[in-house]
């Protein structure tokens, strides 16, 4: 009886490891929050180079700070994946639809999360919807 239990436990364990090695990426994609992203646009405001980002991308913290989430490439997974990176920003100008921020906030090549169904946290895995 003990032998059977140990063999069953080992078999289940090895099978689960194999399954999650093969299908782990798909499971993570299924469970990760889906987001829509845009590249920030370079523009000039008051003679100053700025990044224009959609207003829907800006979140307001409890202490009044403003932040956005960017989608940075994650190295934690074997599959190509992105994780949300929280970046605190200061807004230069708000035109109602978009806000203008300093280009130094956002690392070059990173997209900004502009729409999401669930709340995001720094470091969580996200799936970018086209």
């Amino acid at each position, binding site marked *: 009886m003990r032998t059977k239990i*140990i063999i069953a436990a080992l078999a289940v364990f090895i099978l689960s490891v194999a399954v999650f090695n093969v299908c782990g990426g798909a499971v993570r994609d299924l469970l990760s929050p889906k987001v829509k992203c845009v590249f920030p646009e370079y523009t000039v405001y008051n003679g100053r180079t700025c990044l224009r980002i959609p207003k829907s991308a800006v979140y307001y913290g409890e202490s009044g700070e403003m932040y956005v989430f960017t989608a940075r490439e994650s190295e*934690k997974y074997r599959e190509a994946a992105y994780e949300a990176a929280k970046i605190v920003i200061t807004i230069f100008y708000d035109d109602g639809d978009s806000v203008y921020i300093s280009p130094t906030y956002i690392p070059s090549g990173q997209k900004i999360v502009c729409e999401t169904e669930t709340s995001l946290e720094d470091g969580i895995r996200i799936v970018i919807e086209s």
Partner: protein
Amino acid sequence: MELADMVKRRFLDIIVASLICLSAAVVVFPVIFVAASSLRSGFNAYIDFYIWEPRYLYALTNSIIISAAAAVGATSVSVFAAYVFAKVRFRGRDFIFYFYIIVMMMPFQVTLLPQYIISKTFSIYDTPLALILPGVFSPFTVFLLTQIMKSMPDDMIEAARLDTSSTLVIVTRIIIPAIKPGIICAFVLAFAEQWNAVAEPLVLMETHEKFPLAVFLNQVSANDALALTAVALFAVIPFLLFSLFEAQVIEGLGEYRLK
């Protein structure tokens, strides 16, 4: 007088039993503690392990592949090597066997640098093969199986020779079934040796994603403590293997007995 002896013996039994229970508790407590810690926040540790922190899963997979391949390889090679050392007479046999024992006695750090140079030369550095191949040609399993085969009566092999002249048939049909516990013992010990190896992977590998679990566990940060508890629990697989083949391992460490 007899009653006094009985009381004394009973008292000694209780003390011995208590000491054994205490030693068992000391050994088992860390495992129970880790298991309890991993369940402290429900199954989150296991969800992290399988889904959100796959680095542990990858490291564990590396460990399983490396240990299983090395153990299977070591056992397969050792059976034939041990047969030659135990049952085939040729000039220099004892010298080679003693050479094997000397290599076995050497601290593994001595052979680590040559292993590094060889793995670089054969372009297997930073691949699982760099760990598997030295494990396959482990002198310990050869030594263990040689000792077991030496205790087998030659009459068995001579009787088999009447039916066939093929050494391969004799080894696979006669020797292997006869020393099955010894082979299982060699497999479990080879598996455990590879599973717990730390220095070799550190020297023979450089990509973190390819590290086995024993090395990877040293590099996790305190932030990952939750998934770590689940991983630490999975790290006791060799113990499960040992308990599965306990009888064979113990029998395998002894001499061959004709059945």
